[in-house]
């Protein structure tokens, strides 16, 4: 393989591994804020203990997830320079400030207050501790704000001028709030809520099945199921709006998503099929007549541009086509699961200790990491869908890559992939282990008091 392809795989591997953890922590932190507030509100009632247990257990998961997010994020900040020096050289004037504000306003905020949030409950007042938790939540969300603004600008660039091949900012507000940004931010934050929600629901269901549940597992399960039942319809609506926005600004991406090879009026919606890029058609297509035009333009006779209009400037069709179907399929599955679970739990609402039916718990366990699948598929759609450009329509990915020996890139890629595989395995198995042993009041990091006669 050539250096370009290897560098792309390496970047994709790094960023895919990285996003798994922030997409959990962004929303999980707000869940923790909620558990904390419920704990305070139910003080001196029987419910108090449950919220405290839920807070305690999910803080442990948060700490672990956050650590993985931090270290994989450091890797990201070096990737630009080591493999894609052309990116900052051409786009640096615009990408730089946005990344800079992310570090200055978000990274330090979350990393510094994390220490107090995790280990400071005995050392500061309840109010200070709550503020620290809120600061971490604010930091993670702000981080998403800046990085998605930059990503969206690369998809829908505005507010710039190009002098000698380099981008210069003309209107910062236009850059920050570029046309696809509100949709992408909303879509990503909702995805984070769903990812964390299904994780909490799945792990709590596993505890109920394994008999390791405590009162906290029930509190967490109820909270998570309620959250996902509310969020999933919003996400489907947001996804639709995002799609309409993409049609307006990146029609080639939509053509690849739909497998639409030629411009048509009243285009059919392809549910499934095998995109055949060589022949320029979709084999074995299962289609609904006129439905694509209806969904995308809200008019059965509307004209949709096909891939043939973007010769040499459209993304590879098959990965975008499939990733989109994985994402939508997962979204629909989430809808069914979220509403079914919410209905069943609502029926059981007055019988506090009654366990939900086994089939439901098993289905929720199966959905534990569904958010990861949908998130990664969604990012594949939008990022592969932007190819062959880095900045859509203006700057090609191939013009940014560093000229390293392929063997060297292959070597580091192999190293990263093996570390990532190991860590993913460790992460999932440690969460399973913690879920099955919630009663162990494991200190975060056991310390001085456990050393007899330390002095």
């Amino acid at each position, binding site marked *: 393989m050539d250096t370009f392809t290897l560098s792309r795989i390496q970047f994709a591997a790094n960023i895919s591994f990285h996003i798994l953890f922030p997409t959990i922590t962004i929303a999980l932190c707000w869940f923790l804020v909620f558990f904390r507030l419920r704990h305070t509100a139910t003080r001196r009632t029987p419910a108090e203990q449950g919220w405290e247990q839920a807070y305690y257990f999910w803080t442990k998961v948060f700490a672990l997830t956050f650590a993985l997010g931090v270290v994989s994020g450091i890797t990201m900040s070096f990737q630009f320079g*080591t493999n894609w020096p052309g990116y*900052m050289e051409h786009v*640096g004037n615009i990408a730089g400030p946005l990344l*800079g504000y992310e570090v200055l*306003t978000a990274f330090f905020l979350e990393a510094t207050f994390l220490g107090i949030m995790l280990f400071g*409950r005995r050392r500061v007042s309840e109010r200070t501790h709550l503020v620290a938790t809120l600061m971490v939540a604010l930091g993670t969300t702000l981080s998403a704000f800046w990085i998605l603004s930059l990503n969206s600008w690369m998809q829908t660039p505005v507010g710039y001028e190009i002098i000698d091949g380099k981008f210069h*900012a003309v209107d910062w507000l236009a850059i920050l709030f570029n046309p696809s940004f509100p949709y992408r931010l909303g879509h990503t934050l909702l995805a984070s809520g769903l990812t964390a929600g299904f994780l909490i629901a799945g792990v709590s269901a596993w505890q109920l099945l394994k008999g390791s549940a405590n009162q906290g597992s029930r509190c967490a399960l109820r909270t998570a199921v309620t959250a996902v039942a509310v969020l999933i319809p919003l996400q489907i609506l947001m996804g639709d709006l995002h799609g309409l926005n993409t049609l307006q600004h990146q029609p080639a991406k939509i053509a690849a998503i739909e497998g639409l090879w030629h411009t048509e009026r009243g285009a059919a919606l392809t549910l499934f099929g095998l995109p055949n890029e060589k022949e320029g058609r979709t084999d074995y297509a299962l289609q609904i007549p006129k439905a694509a035009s209806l969904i995308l333009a809200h008019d059965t006779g509307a004209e949709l541009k096909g891939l043939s209009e973007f010769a040499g400037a459209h993304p590879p069709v098959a990965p975008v086509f499939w990733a989109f179907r994985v994402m939508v399929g997962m979204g629909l599955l989430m809808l069914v699961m979220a509403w079914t679970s919410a209905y069943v739990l609502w029926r059981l609402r007055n019988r506090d200790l009654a366990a939900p039916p086994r089939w439901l718990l098993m289905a929720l366990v199966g959905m534990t990491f569904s958010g990861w699948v949908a998130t990664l598929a969604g990012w594949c759609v939008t990022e592969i869908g932007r190819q062959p450009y880095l900045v859509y329509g203006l700057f090609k990915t191939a013009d940014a890559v560093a000229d390293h020996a392929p063997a060297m890139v292959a070597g580091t890629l192999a190293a990263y992939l093996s570390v990532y595989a190991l860590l993913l395995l*460790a992460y999932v198995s440690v969460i399973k282990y913690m879920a099955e042993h919630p009663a162990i009041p494991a200190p975060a*990091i*056991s310390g001085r008091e456990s050393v007899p006669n330390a002095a």
Partner: protein
Amino acid sequence: MDSISWATALPLIFMAVMGLALLAYVVLDGYDLGVGILLPFATDLEKDVMVSSIGPFWDANETWLVLGVGVLLICFPRAHGLVLSALYLPVAVMLVGLVLRGVAFDFRVKARDAHKATWNRVFSAGSLAATLAQGWMLGAYITGFQNDIWGLLFSAGIAITLPAAYAMLGAGWLLMKTDGALQRKAAQWGRGALWPMGLALVGISVATPLVSPTVFAKWFALPELFVLLPIPLACLAAFFAIRHVLATARAVDAGYGWIVFGSTVLIFVLAFCGLAYSIYPYIVIDQLTVWQAASATESLVLIGIGVAITLPAIIVYTVFMYRVFWGKAQELTYGL
């Protein structure tokens, strides 16, 4: 100031911000990497205390690296590409080291007990790998990425020196954050790291002007030599202050352990000043000046505003956090 002088001043200001961020990183992550390097020499119970002494801090410490590299990336994109492409392999080694170390922190107490020893080893190995890689990068940077035998030897020399210096920082940290048997052990570790660190510092100081004619010309000229003399002299004084405290059990018992940490930090700061003087006005020595590498002025202005507002806030809440966890390390728990 008019726009032309901003175009002159801003790259210098950001060079200073980047340098200070990297200095903050080296000192702050230096002590927690140092504790990681010292971990294998402790008993199991002591290991827990050592890790808990750095538990609340390491995340924020590593963020200074992101800021330093971030400023390089944001304000000096041309230098960023040049430096990081040249350092491709050591950067990869450092990143894998930092990744393994960072996660080992959490895994070592959350995984089943049988796996704890393995995660402890991962923690130490990751700390050492990241330190070696950072030393190598510093060496390669000073020589301007010379790939001849002297350049490589010089890089290798710094790579094996830095662990001693970080171990000294780590030992100094433990003198402040622990007591009893572990504190005495920390003093012993510090004595072990002292001479390797001192000899290596002398070696680097002698070798740097030899591998770089530019540095030689800047240091060995009159009257600059006399103005610069306080730097090595202060280093010498700091070195003997460390030696004295480490050799005197009474001093450590009486709470003067902080002198070891403070003096080691002073040596890092002085070495940084010397380096900054050697390199100025280059960002990549003999190849690229700060002005040639800088981003457009309008972008620098925007980041400058952000830095001016947020950096003081960052410093304030960092100080607050250190105050919350002031004193000897205690057991860390998530609960009440």
